[in-house]
């Protein structure tokens, strides 16, 4: 039982790490109806930029600020150069455009900072913190959970309480209508991409501390995808709950199913689980039901 609990809790904490990336997806989807596949590459770019600044001898805070500036600029640039011209394009066109974007961001990040592997130490110990006997939790995971909580609260307030938040929700609902009532589309999209860049930096630093800052960071997006879908695309709460669920299911599945039918199934378990949930709730746990009026 204690082992089960250990597996379960560590899964929940792992899941929150995916939520951090999934929140980036949610942000952009919520505001522009685009599934931004490039979020993973943005995580990589943010982490790589931060580490490179840091390794140049700049202080921790200075590096964070500089990276923030870079990510915000990147967000604005993305909107200017690409997204602005794709308003009203079909879902799949937009999706593929972001896959193209991922290629650009990956290329750019490696072009500027090189493909070497960097270590990143945030100064938070990532070893076992015994809580009860052999039941352990890592300090780092608790810290990450705290960050996620802060992030979610901040974003929820931003979306529901500010004018910009309302704009963003209106654009997500119907870009043409938003345009027709004069919502400053380009500025809003730039804001949201910049915000996604900031979220990418947070995710990039935490993931970078965990895996090392290297190319594989961009792959984390694939694990965040089922979280995003399970949560229902537009809900930040959904992304958190989805992350917790996926993390737990993945851990339990690997241990209790993996030991029977063969290890290494954590790549498909999250997707299979998300699929199961979708069969019951076709628009995710917290997804808005699409209103179809004919």
């Amino acid at each position: 039982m204690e082992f089960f609990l250990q597996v379960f809790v560590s899964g929940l904490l792992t899941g929150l790490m995916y939520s951090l990336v999934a929140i980036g997806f949610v942000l952009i989807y919520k505001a522009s109806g685009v599934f931004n596949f490039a979020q993973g590459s943005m995580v990589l770019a943010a982490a790589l930029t931060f580490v490179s600044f840091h390794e140049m001898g700049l202080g921790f805070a200075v590096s964070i600020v500089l990276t923030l500036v870079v990510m915000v600029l990147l967000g604005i640039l993305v909107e200017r150069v690409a997204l602005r011209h794709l308003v009203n394009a079909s879902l799949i066109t937009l999706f593929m455009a972001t896959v193209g974007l991922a290629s650009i961001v990956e290329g750019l990040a490696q072009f500027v900072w090189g493909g070497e592997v960097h270590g990143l130490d945030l100064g938070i110990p990532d070893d076992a913190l015994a809580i009860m006997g052999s039941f352990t939790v890592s300090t780092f995971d608790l810290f990450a959970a705290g960050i996620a909580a802060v992030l979610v609260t901040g974003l929820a307030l931003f979306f529901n309480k500010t004018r910009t938040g309302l704009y963003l929700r209106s654009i997500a609902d119907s870009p043409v209508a938003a345009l027709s009532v004069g919502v400053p589309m380009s500025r809003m999209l730039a804001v949201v991409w910049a915000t996604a860049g900031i979220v990418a930096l947070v995710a990039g630093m935490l993931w970078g501390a965990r895996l090392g800052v290297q190319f594989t960071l961009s792959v984390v997006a694939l694990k965040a995808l089922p979280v995003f879908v399970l949560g229902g695309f537009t809900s930040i709460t959904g992304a958190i709950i989805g992350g917790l669920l996926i993390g737990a299911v993945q851990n339990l599945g690997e241990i209790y199913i993996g030991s029977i039918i063969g290890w290494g199934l954590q790549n498909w378990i999250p997707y299979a689980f998300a699929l199961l949930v979708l069969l019951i709730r076709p628009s995710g746990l917290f997804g808005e039901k699409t209103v179809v009026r004919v």
Partner: protein
Amino acid sequence: MIEANEPVTALLAVNNIEVVYDSVILAVKGVSLTVPERGIVALLGANGAGKSSTLKAISRIITTERGEITKGHITFQGQDITNESPFHLVRGGLIQVLEGRFVFPHLTVEENLLVPAYVRKVARSQVRQELERIYAYFPRLKERRTSQAGYTSGGEQQMVAIGRALMARPALILLDEPSMGLAPQIVEEIFEIVQDLNRKEAVSFLVAEQNTAVALRYADFGSILERGRVVMSGNAAELSANEEVKEAYLGMSGKGPMSFRETKRYHLRKRQFAYRLA
């Protein structure tokens, strides 16, 4: 409503614009029209005549549909707005209500109304007042203000769309096909409100409409579009009285129902008419 002896100044002037989609499809072939200060102008015509394209060209929504204005220019309150962004148009007092009632389905009715108010940068203390102003015209919206707009009825959605446009305090509203898919009674109700707004708030309207009879009843002026060209325009009363308009758009002929042959000849005549004009 414009009084008969009042001097008419042009609020919006569209000068000979040509609209091309996808750089090969010519949808509007040289349309000119004028909306006078505090006037209601009806843009009439059949499906595909180019009404919506004209409106979208004015409000610049056309750019999202791969269309562009290749010729002509548009002035609003004396300024050239041919290449203005929708954002600046709305702030300048020109707003469009899209065909098919594009509300924000997942926002509440009230949130729908709030979006343009924010565009106009209404102070927080004023917002409530502004909302009440709209609710006064659309009491039904007040009842439903916390429900998701996507779940309201067609008529209510049209009201949300018009009310939302009104929140921007516009000088001119481009109203695209307000009657679409609505019961005749609701259509009348909507047009009543339009007239009311025009009188009380001095808002001008450019209404694209297939329902010619209703539109002409409420409008001051009318233009009839066919295949991307204006084939006839003038005073609403004159248009309603015109025999050809009666025949073609109001389904009335002086001589009772038309035979098939007569209809055919009529269409031929109309085409020649259109060519003469062009």
